[in-house]
């Protein structure tokens, strides 16, 4: 449904994105993950036809974005980071205007209007002026605006930014509900959001794609071993040595005791599950085990790991080239 081939965008001397290629299948939800300024918005703006790429090609909904922009724009719903709202209009008037310029048939506008308002929780707000709406509601109008013409492709730039937790959950559910009928690309710098809503993730940093995979694969690939948290009551002096007797245990660290409970963090290597061994050791040594839980590597950690690895590699290659030059 979406094909990006070697997209590069330069503003003068700064390169916003470099050689970005990816594909999104019909009905899929793809998450774009990266720190602020990584090139997420630039990529999305190119796909939505807001501006052309310096190099490369993008095909959205079967049409080349540069050659047939109008055809693409008819089929794409785009929600920019700041919802593009005319504050002095009422919600209804605004959505009607958007529906018209997006090419919705005149006799379908009313039904589309009530449909998107119901979907985005705006049914009661139709006659209110947009400037009087709260931030969360403005965000919903922004989303409604992107959905009004039943686009095949939805491009959402940070759709949950500025919402309260309850609204965030609602928006995520709404987005998940869109999958299947719509192909969705959404960007975020909040990592759990991706694992909750997306089927595939692209991590982008400094304008380049760092990795592209499913959230589960990313977690398991990079996790490499588990971290197990224990809560223990009793003297823990020998515990560290005892646990290290298990060959898979790599490291044991004791935390600050809280309410007489001693938190312990055990890091293991390999894919073998050793939780039962750990539990047995603890019980055998006469200590009370209150909690045992595994901690998988969060996307935050993966993200930091990936982006910092990238940088160190780059630095190394730079050093190498410098060395070569001096030689």
């Amino acid at each position, binding site marked *: 449904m979406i094909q990006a081939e070697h997209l590069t965008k330069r503003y003068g001397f700064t390169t916003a994105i470099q050689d970005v290629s990816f594909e999104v299948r019909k009905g899929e939800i793809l998450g774009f993950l990266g720190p602020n300024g990584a090139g997420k918005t630039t990529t999305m703006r190119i796909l*939505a036809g807001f*501006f052309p790429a310096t190099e490369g090609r993008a095909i959205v909904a079967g049409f080349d974005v540069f050659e047939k922009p109008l*055809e693409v724009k008819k089929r794409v719903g*785009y929600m920019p980071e700041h919802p593009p709202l005319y504050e*002095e209009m009422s919600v209804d008037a605004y959505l009607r*205007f958007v529906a018209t310029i*997006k*090419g919705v048939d005149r006799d379908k506008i009313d039904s589309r209007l009530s449909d998107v308002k119901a979907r985005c929780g705006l049914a009661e707000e139709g006659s209110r002026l947009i400037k009087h709406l709260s931030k969360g509601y403005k965000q919903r109008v922004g989303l409604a*605006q992107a959905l009004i013409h039943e686009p095949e492709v939805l491009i959402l730039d940070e759709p949950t930014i500025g919402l309260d937790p309850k609204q965030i959950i609602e928006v995520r559910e709404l987005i998940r509900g869109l999958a299947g009928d719509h192909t969705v690309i959404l960007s975020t710098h909040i990592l759990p959001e991706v694992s909750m809503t997306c089927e595939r993730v692209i991590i982008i940093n400094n304008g380049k794609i760092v990795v592209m995979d499913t959230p589960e694969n990313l977690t398991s690939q990079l996790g490499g071993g588990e971290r197990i948290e224990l809560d223990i009551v009793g003297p823990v002096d020998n515990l560290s040595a005892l646990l290290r007797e298990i060959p898979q245990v790599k490291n044991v660290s004791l935390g600050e005791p809280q309410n007489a409970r001693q938190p312990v963090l055990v890091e293991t290597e390999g894919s073998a599950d050793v939780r039962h061994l750990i539990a047995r050791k603890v019980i055998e040594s006469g200590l009370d085990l209150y909690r045992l839980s595994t901690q998988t590597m969060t996307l935050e950690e993966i993200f930091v790991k990936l982006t910092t690895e990238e940088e160190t590699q780059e630095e190394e290659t730079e050093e190498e080239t410098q060395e070569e030059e001096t030689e």
Partner: protein
Amino acid sequence: MRNYLAIVTKELRTLFVSPIAYVVLAVFFAITGYFFYIILGNVIEFVMQRAFQSQQFGAAPPPFDAPAAVIRGFFGVLSTILLFLIPMITMGIFAEEKKRGTIELLFTSPLTHLQLILGKFTALILFLLVMLVPTIVNSILLYLLSEPAPRLVTMLVGYLGAFLLGGALLAVGVFISSLTENQIVAAVLTFGTFLILWVIDATAGTGSTITNETIRYLSILNHYEDFTKGVLDSQHVIFYLSFIFLGLFLTSVSLDSGKWRG
């Protein structure tokens, strides 16, 4: 066509919801009304003086077309007021869309730049008509009450001139607004450009070299004078129409350039 009309409607709504439109209209009507009164007074006084003098010397006064003098004075003032007020209504036309990010909506919708620019320009032209049409009241009074009545054609040509001049100024304003996302910057630049176009003929030398002639030709006021006299000359009409075309064409280039879309 549908897109174009949607843009026109939306722009008119935006214009008339904002207080700027009403302030501009109020100021415009107050000043034109006041100046009409002053000009009328001056002309009447002048005519009376002449009548008095001719009585004293016992000779008939040379012919003087008083209503035409009023019309000329009135349209002269009208043009100056337009020069000051038009930057106020064009400054936001694109700058505001950029500032609020709504340009992202417009640029990612299946709209052509032509529909967008013409839609916005049409809305501004309609606003210009809203400014000009009520001042016809002054002219009607003049037409009904003066003896001899002014020629209808003189007044109509005057209005045509004001309309074309206003249209040319609007087109320049639209272009400048498309260059920036700051309304105040747009207003100041627009006003500065108007002033330069206004006084540019003063920089021309006295000779009739090509340079001097060109500079004189560019002066937006020179072309207006004939209209206020009731003279309809196609070269002036063409001048203003090409000015409008140039302004809108440059707007299109500016939107296409995409440089500012950081």
